[in-house]
């Protein structure tokens, strides 16, 4: 979320209302010198690493999400944005556990913020 959205209750409902997710309640603050693209890639890498590998949507989905995001951040293509959202929906709907079901949330909201910041 951006500076303008900071006045929000730290609750599931509050964060959901502004298109963010509460996760485990941790808040990390970045100043404007942080490279948001690298942070997003770091999050994608995190979910790829944390996938246990049991179900297909999460095991392969988190890998494809990182690959597509990598492409997207160097060369923005609408087809890749759509692909990312396709992967996200399948992970959310068909993964066994909460990790796969939420692995796309931070990426999606981060990408939205990136587009807001970069116009």
């Amino acid at each position, binding site marked *: 979320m951006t500076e303008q959205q900071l006045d929000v209750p730290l609750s599931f409902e509050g964060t959901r209302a502004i298109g963010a997710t509460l996760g485990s309640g941790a808040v990390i603050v970045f100043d404007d010198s942080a490279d948001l693209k690298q942070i997003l890639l770091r999050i994608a890498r995190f979910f*790829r*690493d*944390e*996938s*246990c*590998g*049991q*179900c*297909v*949507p999460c*095991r*392969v*989905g*988190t*890998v*494809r999400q990182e*690959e*597509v995001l990598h*492409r997207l951040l160097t060369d923005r293509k609408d087809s890749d944005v759509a*692909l990312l959202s*396709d*992967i996200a*929906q*399948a992970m*959310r*709907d*068909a*993964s*066994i556990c909460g990790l796969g*079901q939420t692995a796309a949330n931070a990426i999606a909201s981060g990408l939205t913020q990136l587009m807001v910041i970069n116009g």
Partner: protein
Amino acid sequence: MAERVFVGLPKRFVKVSIDGVEMEVLEGATILDACRELQIDTPTLCQLETLTPVNVCRVCVVELEGSRVLVPACSRKVEAGMKIQTDSERVRHSRRLVLELLASSVDMSLCSYSVSGWMARYGATPGRFGENVATVAQPVKIDNDLYVRDYSRCILCYKCVEACGVDAQNTFAIGVAGRGFDAHISTEFTTPLPESACVYCGNCIGVCPTGALMFKSEYDMRLAGTWDESAQTMTETVCPYCGVGCMLELHVQDNSIVKVTSPLDHSVTAGHLCVKGRFGFQFVQKRK
């Protein structure tokens, strides 16, 4: 007086609705059982009648009213009042993506025809993830004379692990090692098969849906370009080795046995054999 036999408690029927069709299903049945009763062709990869459902492939998912996420038809049991959609936009989307994710990372060319049928039905185009994407491609493991392991074809359906474990063989020679995309089927400490606990029953080959596990005889013939299923006949017989009475299906090409299977629905084997029935057929074709 004859001895009393406990036949179990009577089972009830539960009412569910599938794609708008109201039906009654015996309690304890899965959504997949109900779908099959209605003759709704439901894709499955990790499901097999003779194995405990592991619901990992997620290709059978259906939409259940009131559920936040889709549910696996293969393992979710029917409950009274369930309203299920098997062909909604969400279901089609997830089934399509699961097939695309698998086919973009695994060589699925030896899967049954039904898999390509599902790919077509759900419009799966695995190539859309791009060209330089991660795959499980790797060299074939050939370390014994009976069967080969080509894990570039492995979709991690867990069937071999289950057949090697409590669902059939109780040998526990293989399991899933590693995590995430690196998860793979392995013997203990990745030892070669001859040094592992494997007893070469071949029951893992019998349940493998992708050709990752294959008779060495089939592998060699495929490599030589002589494997021709249309030229093969199948002869049913009973295993001659012991008195159990396992039913064998001898797959014969050019008057030689090239593969031995057993039917899944056979009361004695449930598709499973031992090393003798599965691989001990050379004496039949020893010609003097």
